[in-house]
């Protein structure tokens, strides 16, 4: 027989003002099954909690209803209190008399009767609560990092340096990501490659990091602590074990005029190529979509040139499987091409910021000297356009790309440093320079370097002979402007890496309309996701700059290491369970589960003969949403803590008391 204790909190005056707590306590004692009811000024205070504990012991209570604030506020507090008295923490429920009653209803009579009903509802529920024990799952203390840009590198190094094994998967032939492409970084103007390259080498040589480049995550199975990851290693057509990276093959390749991805199309590469001089690993790869051997079936010059005989045209993709306990997604970003707006047209001298980085980079195609793609001349007048796609709900993306203000200022500065008599114009909407020393940097560019900042957007760009005509506005003066420019650099929008949405799906991580992966909580769980054991680092989550990315990657590493600090994982026991006796194995549960928790379980008799296959919910994976419960027509699945019986009982208590 249930013996329920009801504890009504005055919350000072917060509840008591609009709810007659004494009357409620009196009436609550009359609810069938209630053995004890009392009210107190602050139930969450130490004396309040003590009252609960004492009543549990003295009255032999079997379930507790605390009628106070929102469970989101103090459920944990009262669960702990209940546990302190030896009662299972899941035998405690809260009736929300504050947020859902006293604070929103001013009629004392109405609020009082509603309060009593809210209590009756929870009494009916708690009568049917079951003691639950936390779920423990084993932990594989090995992490997967997806993406070898600065975010992935940082996370991998932090985890590895703490003594845990890391698998790092990079889609491109080399790690390094966008940061390796940059010339110098704002606001300190460090040489990007100079600070990046040592990190890349450290990854390569780290005994605890298993590096897969030119590889992609094909499938992810399992759950926190127990992921099984299938990785596709794409065929490089080069035997990695023999190659010395001498580069002879790349020099012999007859295809030399392929737009270089690393140079963002500003430079060229052969069909067999090492992406850039400091690439890690420093190995060539054959671009099979452009290689004459693959297109026409004959050539073989690179194979002839290779002194080690490591060119392998027959090589195929291979699949490797890795067991990991946590995953860091660090797939990074892309910038939109400079051809988004038809009113800007497409002209070789209209480029995006990343392309300009390559033109400014000492290792770039022009050896760091800005030159016009159309004719190779040094531009005398450059127009930079910020928000060229960002903050444009109608035709671009509505969000701010976050980094453009700063890199555009940097571009203007670097350009002025390299072309002293050149003129730099910057069209901007707002200058967002919220980082450390950022604002001072922008002012330096305007005031000391003489970049002409114009507040407004550009409406049209067209070619007039050798030059581009840029028609913009300066809204501060209210004038339309026409500028003749040799080069236009568009700060195009930052978008997630193509394919990151597909990866997010494999990882069961939600993503927004633009494809940025969603964190579990924007404020309090910024690197976690709603899939336990999967974390987000860098720009796959939202546009951000290098310091923020590195900090976030470090945050991910800390979360992963914290996860790995226990040998077993404890999880909330709010999970689904299958009644194997009635399951008809339609596996609709499997179809709807966002977390792939339902598994196929074989039922056998003592002789080992297969009787039936039924659904089984993997408790380690189940997040407790209850979708399978509702989908199951025979209702062979129930959700602990929010069971069908509990809910029906709550509904049964809804009738007026």
């Amino acid at each position, binding site marked *: 027989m249930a013996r329920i204790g009801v504890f009504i909190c005055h919350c000072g005056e917060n509840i008591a003002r609009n709810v007659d707590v004494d009357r409620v306590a009196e009436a609550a004692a009359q609810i069938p099954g209630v053995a004890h009811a009392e009210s107190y000024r602050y139930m969450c205070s130490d004396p309040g909690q003590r009252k609960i504990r004492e009543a549990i012991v003295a009255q032999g209570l079997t379930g507790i209803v605390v009628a106070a604030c929102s469970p989101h506020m103090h459920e944990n507090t009262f669960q702990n209190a209940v546990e302190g008295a030896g009662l299972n923490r899941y035998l405690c429920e809260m009736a929300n008399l504050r947020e859902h009653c006293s604070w929103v209803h001013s009629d004392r009579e109405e609020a009082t009767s509603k309060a009593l009903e809210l209590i009756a509802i929870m009494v009916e529920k708690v009568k049917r609560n079951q003691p639950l024990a936390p779920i423990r799952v084993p932990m594989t203390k090995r992490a997967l990092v997806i993406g070898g840009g600065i975010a992935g590198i940082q996370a991998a190094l932090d985890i590895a340096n703490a003594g845990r094994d890391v698998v790092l998967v990079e889609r491109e032939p080399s790690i390094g990501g966008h940061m390796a492409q940059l010339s110098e970084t704002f606001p300190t103007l460090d040489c990007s490659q100079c600070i990046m390259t040592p990190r890349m080498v450290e990854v390569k040589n780290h005994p605890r990091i298993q590096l897969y480049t030119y590889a992609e995550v094909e499938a992810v199975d399992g759950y926190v602590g127990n992921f099984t990851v299938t990785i596709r290693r794409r065929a490089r057509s080069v035997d990695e074990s023999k190659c010395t990276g001498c580069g002879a093959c790349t020099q012999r390749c007859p295809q030399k005029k392929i737009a270089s991805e690393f140079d963002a199309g500003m430079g060229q590469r052969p069909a067999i190529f090492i992406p850039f001089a400091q690439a890690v690993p420093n190995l060539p790869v054959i671009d099979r979509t452009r290689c004459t051997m693959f297109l026409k079936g004959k050539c073989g010059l690179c194979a002839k040139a290779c002194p080690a005989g490591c060119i392998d045209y027959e090589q195929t993709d291979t699949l490797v499987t890795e067991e990991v306990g946590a995953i860091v997604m660090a797939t990074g970003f892309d910038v939109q091409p400079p051809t988004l707006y038809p009113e800007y047209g497409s002209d070789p001298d209209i480029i995006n910021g990343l392309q300009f980085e390559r033109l400014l980079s000492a290792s770039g195609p022009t050896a760091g000297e800005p030159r016009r793609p159309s004719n190779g001349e040094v531009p005398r007048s450059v127009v930079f356009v910020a928000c060229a796609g960002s903050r444009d709900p109608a035709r671009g993306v509505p969000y701010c790309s976050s980094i453009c203000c700063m890199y555009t200022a940097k571009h203007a500065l670097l350009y002025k440093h390299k072309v002293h008599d050149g003129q730099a114009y910057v069209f901007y909407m707002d200058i967002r320079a919220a980082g450390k020393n950022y604002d001072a940097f922008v002012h330096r560019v305007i005031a000391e370097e003489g970049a002409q900042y114009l507040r407004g957007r550009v409406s049209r760009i067209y070619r007039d002979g050798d030059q581009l005509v840029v028609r913009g506005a300066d809204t501060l003066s209210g004038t339309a402007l026409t500028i003749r420019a040799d080069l236009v650099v568009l700060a195009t929008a930052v978008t997630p890496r193509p394919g990151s949405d597909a990866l997010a799906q494999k990882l069961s991580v939600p993503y927004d309309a633009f494809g940025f992966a969603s964190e579990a909580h924007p404020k309090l769980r910024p690197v976690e996701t709603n899939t336990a054991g999967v974390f987000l680092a860098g720009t796959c989550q939202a546009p951000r700059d290098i310091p923020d990315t590195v900090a976030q990657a470090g945050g991910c590493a800390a979360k992963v290491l914290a996860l790995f600090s226990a040998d077993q994982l404890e999880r909330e026991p709010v999970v689904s369970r299958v009644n194997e006796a009635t399951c008809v194995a*339609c596996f609709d549960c499997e179809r709807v589960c966002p977390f792939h928790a339902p598994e196929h379980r074989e039922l056998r008799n003592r002789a080992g003969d297969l009787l039936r296959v039924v659904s089984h919910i993997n408790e380690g994976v189940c997040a407790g949403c209850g979708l399978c419960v509702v989908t199951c027509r025979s209702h062979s699945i129930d959700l602990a803590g929010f069971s069908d019986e509990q809910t029906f009982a709550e509904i049964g208590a809804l009738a007026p008391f």
Partner: protein
Amino acid sequence: MSTETLLTPSAPDTATWKPRLVAFVCNWCTYTGADLAGTSRTEYPANVRIVRLPCSGRIDPHFIIRAFEQGADGVLVSGCHPGDCHYTAGNYHARRKFMVLHALAEFLGIEPERLQFSWVSAAEGRKWADVVSDVVAGLLRVGPVQPTWGGAGELPVRSLSEPPRPVPEPLDVVGELRATAQRWLSDCRVDVFVGYGQGSLPGRLRPAFITSPDEVDQLVWNEHAVNNLATYLTRGLVKRHGRVGLLVKSCDARAVVGLLQERQIEREQVTLLGVPCIGVEVDGALAPKCHTCDSAWPALVDEVLSAEVPLTPVDGEGLAAEIAWVEKMSPAQRRAWWQAQFDRCLRCYACRAVCPLCYCSQCIADQSRPQWVSKSSDGRGNLAWNLVRAFHLAGRCVGCGECTRVCPSNIRLDLLNAKLAQVVRDEFGYVAGGDPDLPPPLTTYLLEDHEEFIR
């Protein structure tokens, strides 16, 4: 014979009546949004009682039905906005279920004010207060639920928009049917062949189970071959024989697709013999389903009987015309019409027994902890049972019409099924019984699924 009970509150006193609104909300968005309304001290009517569940995907249609049974005047269902689900996709799945439930409620004549859906985020305290105020205002407009069980006006059970049609002469396939069954049994390709044999009453056929090549002469085929034999594929007394050979009409074959989709049978255990069919007889006329059947030939077969099929163009609207006829009634009329139907329900579960897709080993109608459906054969229990049956078949019913044929009380279950099939077709672009590799529509979702019915 309605049972006045403690559980069904008697008709309220209109003078003192206050609407009772039950809100089923998800823990992460709407519950938190309601918390925010509290912290912002945003006042709203005290008529609402919140039941907290983890996710809108956890909100079972049964909960909603039960709330009405327990005297709620209205139910509000609320969860996270699309894209905000704490569990990634719970609300997308829920949205599909709600879409069907919403259409079902409307079809049964339940005033839209009584069943409302909304997305309220954790940041939308104001919206929560507005939604509750608005829904309560709507309930005040429509007033208390009027118990109208029994005594509903006598309305015709069937629309007269399409007169009964004669059944065409059945195709002569018996010889080949028997020969094929004989061959399959002799070749040990199947262990039992399920077809039709002569019934014990004149002019009736009934299922026949042939296990020996010598018995194939028992097999017959004519316009009285009404039973959907696919039902027997999941029956122990048939499965015990081993591999099953099954005679299928095109509608029956669609049910086999459903069973494959839901993994109730293995394709290699079943050998399908398609019979070209140009219509069967129910109640002395061409069965309604045959009016709109567009294929004499089953789509999923292993072998098919040959016959010269006369061109029988699909004409008329069949059940669509009758659905339109029901929808033309006012909501109150519609409710009365359905109530008169459900009132007759004996709870014999013949509808469930004949349905090839009702294969659960233990139906929830038979469960008592919790009791999903009241066993009382009165307004309450009968409404719940018929709603549950229809809802469980949404997106799955292949329209074989067997439930309606066998109902001893002539309840128009086919209209409920066909209406939901329409909704599923129009909203999710899905027709049951087509492609066995497609996921059933209520186990999947599209980001762009409609949600105009959600606030």
